[in-house]
């Protein structure tokens, strides 16, 4: 044993030797984070940087409705309106005007001079064709539902049989080269807010010739264009579009690097190989201190809640549902389970949406006494309680914490967990098999209070999993939809929110936050409400 202390095992020695050789070969790499960048710096446009994403599902904007593809598409396309990074308010970009007299027929006028990366013009037809394609069920576009309120949608999405692949929306009409109209099935004051999402991006004629090829190398009208094809599970490279009609991006080239595991991406930033990455929950505390100013935290649009199956007679009483909400100490759960990476929800509408209120909910503060009292008013709770959640989202810990609070503060002794994989879980929800409180989340499609209310709480809402139906709420939402402007609708929406919070078909639990870190090679990293990094604004700090 004395002798062996002198030597390291053979294979370790070999690894080290190999490593030394490799390190000698790799000397020409730039090492961000080393002392080099401490020299005089300037923030002239130019330079390259890299950014973490996950593997996109699609790069056809009408197909893709997840954030990884969305992040890339945002650099490749410029929409009719763009949302302010701070307030999420829309501002016209490709559109010069979006107007209406009756909130039903909308006239959209485009700015002249915009072109796609292949030189073809961006005109009214490029929008109308794209929207028609997405709305037609035969194309099975993921974002198909965004067009459900445009006239003619039902004919393109029959409940029986197939849609005619050539059919188009009767509600869309090209007026002239730069003008088109969209006629909705009902007044919708928030329409101009919705058209910034990637479902509404324009498509060039090249797409319709070869949709599959387009998916590998999309041609957009954005500040950046594809540099080569999409290297699946590896990277997507984009480069500045020289003929861009809008405000050009700062950096010359951007590499979206694809990681399947966010922990690895974070490690890669620490190793100096990557410029921007999200921070995994477990690294947040450490990341805050390690990265200092380069650690960015902003609110996201994610809204998490616990719903009740209202068809189940045991959950009929609003007092009982309020009691469940009052018994949860949101701050304690967030601190103990989430390392302060969420914010407590006391409203149904994310703080990123204009018009949202911080404390709209009367029964979302922790009040064990009132909770017990409310439960008693409602007649108490008998028997076991089943708590439903999906097993693949890391929910066990907080579900356990919340259950303990219900045990302690409401005296519900027997709480059973019902969990299954997401696909199975959603199936149980759709089939109405869920017989206890269940967890779900919501990510906004567009920054309007309406988007947090109508789909979830209207009687016919597309994601109404509770079965909640209150005519007063529907009437108020309709009133907001028919209001004269985006802002004038807000009061009606908030009135609807008040009623829903009183009825409490769902318990708001927490809102999400975005956490990103970046290397010291770049500055001006901003994250918007959709959790997208504004890549065109990022500046590469050049070192002299």
């Amino acid at each position, binding site marked *: 044993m004395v002798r*062996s202390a002198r030597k390291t*095992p*053979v*294979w*370790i020695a070999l*690894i080290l030797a*190999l*490593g*030394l050789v*490799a*390190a000698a070969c*790799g000397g020409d790499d730039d*090492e961000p984070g080393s002392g080099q960048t401490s020299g005089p710096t300037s923030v002239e446009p130019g330079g390259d940087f890299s950014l973490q994403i996950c593997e996109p*599902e*699609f790069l056809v904007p009408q197909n893709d*409705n*997840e954030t990884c593809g969305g992040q890339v598409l945002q650099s490749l396309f410029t929409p009719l309106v763009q949302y302010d990074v701070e307030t999420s308010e829309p501002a016209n970009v490709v559109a010069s005007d979006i107007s209406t007299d009756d909130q039903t027929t909308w006239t959209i006028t485009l700015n002249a001079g915009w072109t796609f990366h292949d030189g073809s013009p961006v005109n009214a037809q490029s929008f109308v064709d794209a929207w028609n394609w997405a709305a037609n*069920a*035969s194309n*099975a576009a*993921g974002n*198909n*539902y965004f067009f*459900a309120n445009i006239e003619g949608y039902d004919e*393109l*999405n029959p*409940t029986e049989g*197939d849609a005619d692949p050539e059919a188009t929306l009767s509600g869309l009409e090209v007026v002239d080269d730069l003008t088109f109209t969209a006629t909705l099935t009902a007044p919708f004051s928030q329409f101009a807010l919705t058209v910034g999402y990637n479902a509404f991006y324009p498509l060039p004629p090249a797409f319709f010739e070869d949709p599959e090829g387009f*998916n590998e190398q999309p041609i957009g009208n954005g500040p950046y264009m594809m540099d080569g094809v999409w290297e*699946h*599970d*590896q990277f997507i490279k984009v480069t500045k579009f020289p003929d861009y009609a809008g405000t050009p991006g700062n950096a010359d080239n951007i590499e979206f*690097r*694809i*990681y*399947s*595991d966010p922990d*690895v*991406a974070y*490690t*890669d930033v*620490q*190793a100096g*190989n990557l410029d921007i990455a999200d921070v995994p929950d477990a690294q947040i505390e450490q990341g805050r201190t390690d990265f200092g100013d380069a650690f960015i935290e902003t609110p996201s649009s994610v809204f998490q809640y616990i719903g009740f199956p209202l068809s189940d007679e045991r959950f009929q009483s609003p007092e009982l549902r309020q009691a469940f909400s009052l018994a949860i100490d949101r701050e304690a759960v967030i601190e103990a389970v989430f390392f302060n990476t969420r914010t407590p929800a006391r409203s149904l509408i994310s703080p990123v949406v204009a018009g949202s209120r911080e404390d709209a909910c009367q029964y979302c503060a922790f009040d064990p006494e009132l909770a017990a009292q409310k439960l008693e008013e409602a007649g108490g709770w008998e028997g076991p309680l089943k708590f439903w959640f999906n097993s*693949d989202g890391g929910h066990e810990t907080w579900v356990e914490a919340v259950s303990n609070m219900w045990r302690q503060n409401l005296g519900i002794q027997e709480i059973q967990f019902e969990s*299954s*994989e*997401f*696909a*199975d*879980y*959603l*199936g149980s929800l*759709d089939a109405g098999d869920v017989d206890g409180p269940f967890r779900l*989340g*919501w*990510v906004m*499609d567009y920054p309007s209070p309406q988007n947090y209310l109508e789909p979830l709480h209207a009687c016919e809402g*597309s*994601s109404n999993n509770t079965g909640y139906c209150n005519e007063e709420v529907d009437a108020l939402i309709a009133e907001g939809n028919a209001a004269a402007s985006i802002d004038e609708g807000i009061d009606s929406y908030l009135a609807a929110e008040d009623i829903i919070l009183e009825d409490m078909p769902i318990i708001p639990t927490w809102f999400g936050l975005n956490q990103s870190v970046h290397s010291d090679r770049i500055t001006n990293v901003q994250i918007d409400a959709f959790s997208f990094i504004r890549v065109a604004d990022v500046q590469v700090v050049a070192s002299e």
Partner: protein
Amino acid sequence: MGRYTIRRLLQAIPVFFGATFIIFMMVFALPGDPIRALAGERPFSESVQRELRERYNLNDPLPVQYGKYMLALAKLDFGESFNRRRVSDIMKERFPVTIKLALFAFLFEMFLGLIAGVLAGLRRGSFMDNLVLVSTTAVVAIPVFVLGFVAQLVLGVQLRWFPVAGIQSGFYSYLLPAMVLGSLSLVYIARLTRTSLVENLRSDYIRTATAKGLPRTRVVGRHALRNSLIPVVTFLGVDLGALMGGAIITEGIFNIPGIGREIFQAVRSQEGAVVVGIVTALVLIYILANLVVDLLYAVLDPRIRYD
């Protein structure tokens, strides 16, 4: 030998059908509707869900789905993934990556394992023997993912000798993951070689060879080692298949876009066509590797003959 090879290859046919059907059945048996889960918490519109189910034959009963899949496969059509990519394209991208990784790991474990095993086996009880014993025990005791993370953190992040993730640095980016992937098998090879060599060195024919006055290198190299390699070759053959299928953890840690990761994702999203395509290819590789091993026996041990 030719007839033996053909017979073995013919045996692969029922294995192929059995494997594809079983895998197909297992994906089919996964609970939940894959199309419903595809869009996340906000479902696709009804019409789109219907269109997708039709496109992927999800409304058909299992035998019909399997029949349609096999018919397409006969035309070399591996089907389409849920993000509408050809499964053959996915396999073309993924397999070379994993094959490279597995091959590097294979070479790494074979050379180091054999050297360590021979050094230890030649002088039983020596310092070298003990060293190999202790270091291999240490490696066996550490789970692969711990080894992977530690190697990544120390050699990648702190010392910056190796790329941390991805395959963009070419050959160089495969080194560290391959060493991690091959480390466990390296232990087995070292141990197997040692034990087998120790046993053979004590056998009669070695004593005869030594008594004949043959030089030590020839006794060891030509007589002892060659016979000792049979269990090692068996292991290596099986291991090549295991390395390809088992790379999933290593691929995850080092963000390597290989088949392990693809299978994992495809199983989770219940993409039958992707899972069946890749796993079937793996089964075939496994069968071939085993055939090669069996043929190699004859080379190593002249007493074994096939016909």
